[in-house]
């Protein structure tokens, strides 16, 4: 029953978001749309990371590689071959999943910090290789030319409203997949591996296989987000999509919202992105870096004070108010395990 309720809640939420642009005088400026689109996009990115980092407990800092491959998939199809972006998006996402599985296989043998540093190294390697790879535009990147607007080309120039719907569809796909994983056998395997790999293996879970599948799905979804990012910015270049800063965003948003929670990434994005965008508008012009100083300070404070993220705070409040339904809450809170 509870599961059906959660899915219904999710669909209701999507419906409310879809109706937002229809409310007159609610979203008046393009900038508001921009912030909303970024929230949806970053929530989707963080959710894709959440599969491997939150549910499975493998903290990867390499997701900007998969994000970048997706972005280049779309960019190459449009700029290099003059096609519609869709075949490029599909190929890019598949390539990202393949690359993810190939490079993750040896990395999963590493533990803790060795794994984290290996993923840093992979981001740097890909960044530098893409910088000098002429076939994909090298350091100049790929710039979109003018094309027809519309859903077919997935490019709009005048209004950001359609990008908003595009981002909403992206969010629905990514969150839908994660919702499905949560219910499916794979979700239980993932959490079992996170809580104790040896114990899970002793019960017959093939932990390497589970982690690889999760990494593949995660990379596929991250690449879809990357493709959207390219379509939204009309360009791709290596530092924009494949950098440690981008990788860090996947991780930070999820950690801030609540690692391993279904709603965590959305909450994290809904807090961090407006903060980032509005502080950039208000303070970014006043002499460099003030917005990022605040951002850095906030990260330190959140990590130090509330490592389970906003979801941790919410569960804490919920626990206080529903003493009588303790067992149910406790069962929910089981999902809340921190990344080990």
């Amino acid at each position: 029953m509870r599961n059906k309720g959660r899915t219904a809640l999710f669909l209701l939420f999507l419906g409310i978001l879809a109706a937002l642009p229809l409310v007159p005088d609610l979203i008046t400026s393009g900038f508001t749309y921009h912030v909303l689109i970024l929230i949806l996009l970053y929530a989707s990115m963080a959710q894709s990371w959440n599969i491997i980092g939150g549910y499975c407990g493998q903290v990867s800092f390499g997701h900007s590689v998969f994000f970048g491959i997706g972005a280049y998939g779309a960019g190459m199809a449009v700029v290099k071959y003059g096609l519609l972006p869709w075949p490029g998006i599909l190929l890019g996402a598949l390539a990202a999943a393949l690359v993810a599985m190939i490079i993750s296989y040896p990395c999963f043998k590493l533990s803790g910090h060795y794994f984290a540093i290996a993923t840093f190294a992979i981001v740097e390697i890909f960044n530098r290789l893409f910088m000098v790879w002429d076939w994909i535009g090298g350091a100049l990147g790929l710039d979109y030319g003018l094309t027809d607007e519309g859903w077919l080309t997935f490019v709009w120039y005048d209004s950001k409203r359609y990008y908003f719907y595009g981002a909403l569809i992206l969010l629905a796909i990514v969150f839908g997949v994660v919702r499905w994983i949560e219910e499916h056998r794979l979700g239980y395997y993932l959490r079992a591996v996170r809580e104790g790999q040896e114990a899970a293996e002793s019960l017959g879970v093939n932990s390497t296989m589970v982690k690889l599948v999760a990494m593949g799905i995660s990379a596929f979804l991250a690449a879809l987000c990357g493709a959207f990012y390219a379509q939204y910015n009309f360009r791709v270049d290596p530092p924009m999509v494949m950098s440690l800063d981008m990788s860090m965003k996947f991780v930070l948003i999820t950690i801030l919202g609540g690692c391993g929670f279904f709603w965590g990434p959305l909450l994290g994005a809904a807090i961090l992105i407006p903060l980032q965008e509005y502080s950039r508008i208000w303070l970014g012009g006043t002499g460099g870096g003030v917005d990022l100083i605040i951002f850095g300070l906030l990260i330190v404070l959140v990590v130090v004070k509330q490592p389970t993220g906003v979801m941790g705070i919410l569960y804490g409040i919920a626990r206080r108010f529903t003493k009588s339904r303790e067992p149910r809450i406790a069962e929910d809170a089981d999902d809340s395990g921190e990344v080990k």
Partner: protein
Amino acid sequence: MTLFLQIALDGLLNGMIYALVAAGLSLIWGVMDVINFAHGEFLMVAMYVSYWIGFIMHVSPLFSWVASGVFVFILGALTYRLIIKHTIGKSAMSALLATFGLSMLLKNICLNRFSPNFRILHDSILGGKTFLLGDIIFPVPQLITGLFALGMIFILYYLMKRTRLGWAIQATAMDKEAAELMGIRTEWIYTLVFGLGGACVGVAGGLMPSYLAVHPEVGGLFSLLAFVCVAMGGFGSIPGALLASLLIGLVEAFSGFYIAPVFKYVAVFGLYLVVVFVRPKGLFGW
């Protein structure tokens, strides 16, 4: 042959400096199991300290490294007291993420205060001097910095292996609670270790402005290289970090010259991956 030796020398000199940066990181990692993501920014801060002392008071980096070392020692100790202390015992990644926030904070404070301009000291004692030995050119500032780095690493190693303080640090690293029962004030040890780790990078950074330009982004690459050196050397092993750093310096120089400059970091990070895939705990790890 001369060319080969010259490249090897440049690689080794760079490697020695990476080693001092990495030794500080390795110490912190070994004792606390914490990766200090702001390590490169500590280096940047040290370089700014030394640069401003040189610029305002005309003191050469040859002497102002003392001030940078002390400054970053305090910065490191404060970082431990204010941030790292609260992340110990929580998830393994929280310290890394918190120090990532700190690195962002430090980088942008320097950007805000000192502008993104590249700054280099022109009137330092060592700046721009070279001498010839056979056909090989020895750049004096790099050489002095490299030798300083080696000296510091030997002092650090001696401190860890031969003094009571070093034993106390090792005991704390092995088992915090048992060390506390033996009367070791582990909180002080942790603060001191973080300060010492900072001081290593502070000394390295203090010497560098005589040949390397200071700017707010200078630390990023150094911290990545230091992570790689430390992880390649093995968990908390200072000799391992030294060896890995020299190796990385050589690989960087040779691949930069014989393949292409853009591929030097591909080679460096690729080497790291190969090493940890073969030995998942690094060269000297257990």
